[in-house]
């Protein structure tokens, strides 16, 4: 039982990580109907920029508590990612806004590969160890281990989701976003500056990416120029599972995917008598994606937020 509980905890934390990234995907899709494949790369840039700042701070010998150093790293990474998100939208997506919808998808892939290679040149090819700045005191719950950082990640993902929901549904900006999502031309005629609204959407999504990047690196203790790729795909799967475009759906999809992967990797061996092993962990994510698309193409929570309101 304690093992099952531990697997469940592993899954929920992994799911919260997917959710943090998936929220960025889903927000852009909700407003623009565009899958921003470069989002995983923005997460990676956020992590590496924060890491550089943290290394400088640690190296300069300023005595600060760990969380403060991490927060400073994040404070630098966020504006960098926001600027990057703005630039990506301005350069790669805006000129193609009227184009067939495959065109921006292809530039998204291009931007993703470009960012990966730029990061490889700037930060090198090696794995970077991310210092353990955040407290990770383990707690014992019914035989399973759960640490502070894991609790914080789950709470953070929930808080980010709540904040996004509040922005979209409770603010003037949110109303403008929903209007833009429903019909850009009409929204423009009603006095909404759709370019600004879309830019802000990207900037918010990129700020979230920076947060996700720092949390993920701190959790695993690793940052690497390649880290955004698989993470992006899994988060995208999570977003589709929950219903892409739906903010609560991204959270739900992330958590479900994390738990499915974790339980799958933990129990497939014993259940199939050793015929299938735990290396099928990644298969579950994409199996789920296929099943969802076949049986419920709009995802668990269905429609886009914007259309529903």
């Amino acid at each position, binding site marked *: 039982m304690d093992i099952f509980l531990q697997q469940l905890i592993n899954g929920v934390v992994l799911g919260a990580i997917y959710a943090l990234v998936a929220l960025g995907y889903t927000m852009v899709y909700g407003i623009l109907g565009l899958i921003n494949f470069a989002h995983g790369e923005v997460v990676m840039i956020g992590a590496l920029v924060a890491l550089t700042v943290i290394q400088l701070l640690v190296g300069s010998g300023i005595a600060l508590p760990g969380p403060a150093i991490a927060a400073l790293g994040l404070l630098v990474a966020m504006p960098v990612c926001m600027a990057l998100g703005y630039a990506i939208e301005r350069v790669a997506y805006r000129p193609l806004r009227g184009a067939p*919808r495959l065109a921006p998808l292809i530039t998204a892939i291009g931007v993703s590969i470009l960012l990966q290679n730029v990061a490889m040149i700037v930060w090198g090819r090696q794995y970077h160890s991310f210092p353990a700045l955040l407290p990770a005191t383990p707690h014992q719950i019914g035989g399973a281990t759960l640490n502070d950082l894991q609790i914080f990640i789950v709470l953070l993902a929930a808080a980010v989701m709540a904040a996004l929901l509040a922005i979209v549904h409770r603010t003037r900006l949110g109303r403008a976003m929903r209007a833009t999502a429903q019909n850009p031309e009409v929204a423009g005629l009603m006095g909404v500056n759709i370019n600004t609204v879309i830019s802000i959407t990207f900037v918010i999504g990129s700020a979230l990416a920076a947060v996700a990047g720092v949390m993920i690196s701190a959790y695993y203790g690793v940052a690497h120029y390649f880290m955004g790729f698989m993470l992006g795909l899994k988060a995208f799967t999570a977003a589709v599972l929950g219903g892409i475009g739906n903010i609560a759906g991204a959270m739900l999809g992330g958590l479900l995917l994390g738990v499915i992967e974790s339980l799958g990797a933990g129990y497939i061996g014993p259940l199939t008598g050793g015929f299938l092993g735990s290396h099928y962990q990644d298969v579950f994510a994409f199996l789920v994606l296929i099943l969802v698309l076949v049986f419920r193409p709009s995802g668990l929570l269905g429609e886009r937020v914007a259309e529903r309101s």
Partner: protein
Amino acid sequence: MSRRPALGVILSFAFAFILAACGKEAPPPPAPKAEAPKPPPEITVKIGQASPLTGPQAHLGKDNDNGARLAIEEMNAKGLMIAGAKVKFELMSEDDQADPKTGTIVAQKMVDAKVAGVIGHLNSGTTIPASKIYNDAGIPQVSPSATNPKYTEQGYKGAFRVMANDVQQGKVLGEYAVKTGAKRIAIIDDRTAYGQGLADEFEKAAKAGGANVVGREFTSDKATDFRSILTSVKAKKPDLVFYGGMDGQAGPMAAQMKSLGIKARFLGGDGAQSAEFIKLAGPAAEGVIASSPGLPLDKMPGSKGFTEKFTSKYGPIQIYAPYAYDATMTLIEAMVKADSVVPAKYLPVLAKITRQGVTGPVAFDEKGDLRNSPITLYVVKEGKWDALETVGGEAAASAAAPAPAPDKK
């Protein structure tokens, strides 16, 4: 205006994206100068190098590339004469992405470019399929780091390696685990030819020694989250966990083991025995034991000069740079001795060569494996790899005294 119907199209592109990302390549090396057809005073000889230059093992791939590059620069500076012509060597470095499919593509590319010999590949998984292509073209291949036994068991005349294979290494590791009291062993590997091969050999040796293998789990060479397999491992209550795979996974794995409260010892192969591992595992690195074929860097006969030259030019050595350097030097020396850069002519010389390399004496047995190759076990002590003992090879006698930490930083 519903946008949903297009989602399917977008998704199919998502998969195209996965494929595209698998197929992308590093920028090609600068175009090689045309080979002069007539006997001129100077000829250019291309030597191939293949390793993952992008992806999660790019740091190791670049290490190999730099090792080979250093050897070639040194040889060019010497101005060697072969068959009456001044020879300029040129490194044709290709990115195989640690992917067997890409490995065969770059192998064909190098064959088509008429390389005189190949240094590589880094991974066993790429080396084995690529070796068929080199063999068909009659091009000799010296791998600095592919340790899977299958590579030299195919009967290819031109397949060599300058490192002990996994049968030897897995055996040493398995025997060490049993010798130090491991009774319940869990084994994890990354499902690559290297990781799986090493883990299998380790399992055989450990079982032969009387230990009980209580769990066998798997991951991939790109993963960072091992908590669910480690939780399964924890349920089996092992006293030792063995990982067959590379440092990028072994580091976080050791850290996650600690955070899950698994008290078992952690043991790895040469892929984990890097400076990178210690940084990634953090405090969890302390006490981890890993093996590496060959001698500790500071015990290698030519290590001092090599380390200085290498680090001043390219920064810290990861793992295999000295082996890539030796592989390249061995290949070139065979060409000089045979007085020919034609593969068919210098291959017999290469097979019989005996030379003193940076990593130790280089001589091949009839299969192409390194003769007399020592294997060293290391333990992490105060954030550094400390040589524990050396098994086999010429250095076996000096194994007792713990050597100072090898300068791997």
